[in-house]
């Protein structure tokens, strides 16, 4: 079971880029109204249900959201009203996640959920949020996080990240036959099945391999990859399981025969040190859902500034980056409610649903909700590619849309909203 959750974490395409605390110079934070005066009005309750224990912890997303809210509160709040942030640990358990949501939404009366980052929270609460007319802007793994009327995520999700990696293999590495490997966990069919559909559309023969998450024998798994005769791979999993597979693949010199593409969950500071970087030099293609942390662009620099000022002890990783964006988007939407007395769940819901697209250099295209009628959300589906070079991460390709046919309805909406790819990150290639 433990491994299952570890795998789920691996599928957590929202894992995105995990980096060490950066020493980038950051200026004065830009938060909300920027008045420099503390908000003292009636608090606005905001909630989050996040996996903080049990199997893994994504608390950095909540901590970053809280840091941004603190910064907003110190700068006039939402027209004078401060935000109080209530986050709950779902312990990676469905029942706990459901109880936590009921406590926050029912008892605490939060107006909106922001920064929730969980393995299972969407499964437990998607329907409940619809019934309660409350929205959630966070990070998610399961398909319910992307197919719900009331949930919209900052991250692209495992399917889009996997397709991003597979598409890189098709375009740049001339993949004709690709193995989609994943542990057999809930949602695995949705992910590799989605990549199979993508393959049919683009002439790539995708062979899915689902394997037993309880087995410790990874070498046999690697032999199974080789036995398919495929030229490329998309290997899902967390960076720790990934390192194990990559080391076993190295043992069989498999990178000489197959192109290894992996989702964004591999893009961590730890991975280059956990594999033989010499062997994998320019041989591992990793999808990335957010801008690299060393981007010098405005919003990314503001994230650094906010964290330095209001969350100096919080690990600056991709969860933190995405939590910050989630909070910033919601604050921007709430500020459109000009009368502070009228800020409540209903008006906040309407404000977020009707918000104009949010342009940020951390994402490859503006983030949007899509109006009150939107029944699915996947605003982030344009991703980047990085590789391991000389033991470090190297940016390979900027924003690129994989043209996944399964999100055609999303594209239609984006066309209507005028959403276009815009690579605003300032990074070195």
């Amino acid at each position, binding site marked *: 079971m*433990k491994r299952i959750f570890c795998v789920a974490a691996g599928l957590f395409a929202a894992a995105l880029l995990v980096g060490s605390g950066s020493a980038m110079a950051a200026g004065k934070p830009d938060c909300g109204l920027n008045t420099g005066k503390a908000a003292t009005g009636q608090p606005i309750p905001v909630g989050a249900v996040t996996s903080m224990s049990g199997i893994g912890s994504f608390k950095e997303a909540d901590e970053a959201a809280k840091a941004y809210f603190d910064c907003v509160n110190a700068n006039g709040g939402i027209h004078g009203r401060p935000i109080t942030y209530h986050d709950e640990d779902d312990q990676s358990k469905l029942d706990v996640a459901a109880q936590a949501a009921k406590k926050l939404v029912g008892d605490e009366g939060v107006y909106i959920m922001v920064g929730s980052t969980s393995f299972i929270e969407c499964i437990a609460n998607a329907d409940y949020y619809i019934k309660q007319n409350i929205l959630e802007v966070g990070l998610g793994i399961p398909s319910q996080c992307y197919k719900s009327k009331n949930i919209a995520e900052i991250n692209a999700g495992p399917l889009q990240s996997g397709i991003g990696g597979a598409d890189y293999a098709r375009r740049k590495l001339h993949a004709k036959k690709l193995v989609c490997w994943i542990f057999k966990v809930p949602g695995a069919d949705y992910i590799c099945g989605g990549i199979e559909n993508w393959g049919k559309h683009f002439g790539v023969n995708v062979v899915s391999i689902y394997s037993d998450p309880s087995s410790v024998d990874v*070498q*046999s798994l690697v*032999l199974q990859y080789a036995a398919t005769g495929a030229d490329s791979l998309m290997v899902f999993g967390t960076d720790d399981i990934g390192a194990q597979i990559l080391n076993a693949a190295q043992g*069989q010199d498999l990178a000489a025969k197959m192109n290894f593409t992996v989702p964004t969950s591999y893009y961590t500071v730890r991975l280059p040190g956990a*594999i033989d970087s010499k062997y994998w030099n320019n041989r591992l293609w990793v999808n990335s859902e957010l801008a690299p942390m060393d981007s010098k662009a405005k919003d990314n620099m503001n994230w650094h500034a906010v964290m330095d000022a209001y969350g100096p002890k919080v690990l600056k990783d991709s969860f933190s980056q995405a939590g910050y964006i989630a909070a910033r988007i919601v604050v921007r939407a709430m500020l459109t409610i000009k009368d502070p007395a009228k800020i409540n769940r209903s008006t906040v819901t309407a404000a977020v649903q009707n918000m104009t697209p949010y342009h940020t250099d951390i994402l490859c295209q503006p983030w949007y909700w899509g109006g009150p009628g939107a029944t699915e959300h996947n605003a982030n589906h344009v991703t980047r590619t990085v590789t391991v070079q000389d033991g470090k991460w190297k940016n390979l390709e900027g924003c690129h849309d994989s043209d996944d046919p399964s999100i055609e309805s999303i594209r239609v909406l984006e066309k209507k909203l005028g959403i276009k790819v815009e690579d605003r990150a300032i990074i070195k290639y």
Partner: protein
Amino acid sequence: MNLLPFVASGIGVGAVYALSSVGLVVLYRASGTLNFAFGAFGGLAAFFAFELSRNDVPQVIGWIVGIAVSTIISYGYGRIFAPRMAHRDRVVRAVATLGLALFLLGAMALYWGVGRARRLVLPTDLDYVLLFGVRVSVTRLIALGIALLMAGGIGLLLSRTRIGLAMRALASDRNISSVIGVRVNATDSFAWLVNGAFAGIAGILLANINRLDPGVLTFLVIPAIASAILARLSSLWGAFIGGMICGEVEAVLTGFPDIMLIRSAGPYIVALLFIMVVGAGQGVGSRE
């Protein structure tokens, strides 16, 4: 599908299972305790070796310290706690070691964390022998050699030495052994000491072959128990063969797409079938 590559692949995991299984049987024979903390002892050894190596301590010293840590902890438990439960039911003694396993798992998870990409490198990782078209690393062959050596060595110890005689006496009847002058506690403690050393070696090897993770290493004990059951928890060579069978079954099932999703259950299914077919009285190598 050609299954021979998977047979070659099963050698490494089978050897680790075999080594673990032999360690479990040694302790069980002497003290009647099925040690669920075996994997956790091994995990500690692997993490200490890893910690020292990342602090630029020579690898050999890391391995020695790691194995020493698992040995000392195992011995300490055998010396302090095990005697106090010596007259309790075997299930109680086994459950007590499960508690220890969970405690150590928690401690490792707390200090080193879970789900983190890291690896324990051994100098023999990149050297290999080609078998059925598969590169079998020298590390895996060493694991096999150590398992063989340990099974043989402990067999000799039991048959040729005084402490071995005492261990065999305890295995036959604890009370009578005590009456005839066998130093029960000292013999028990020795068995725990051997168990800890086996666990340390198995843990370091598994961390290298598989993954350096508290959970993975702690639960190594589960398939090892299936292997030991094949030997009816009595025969050392049976435990060795049982471990190899379990490793091979798990690997070879990869070649059967319809059932590979449950390949980790292979060792237990084999153990169950074995008990049903052969019966409760005999196991692999039980004539030893």
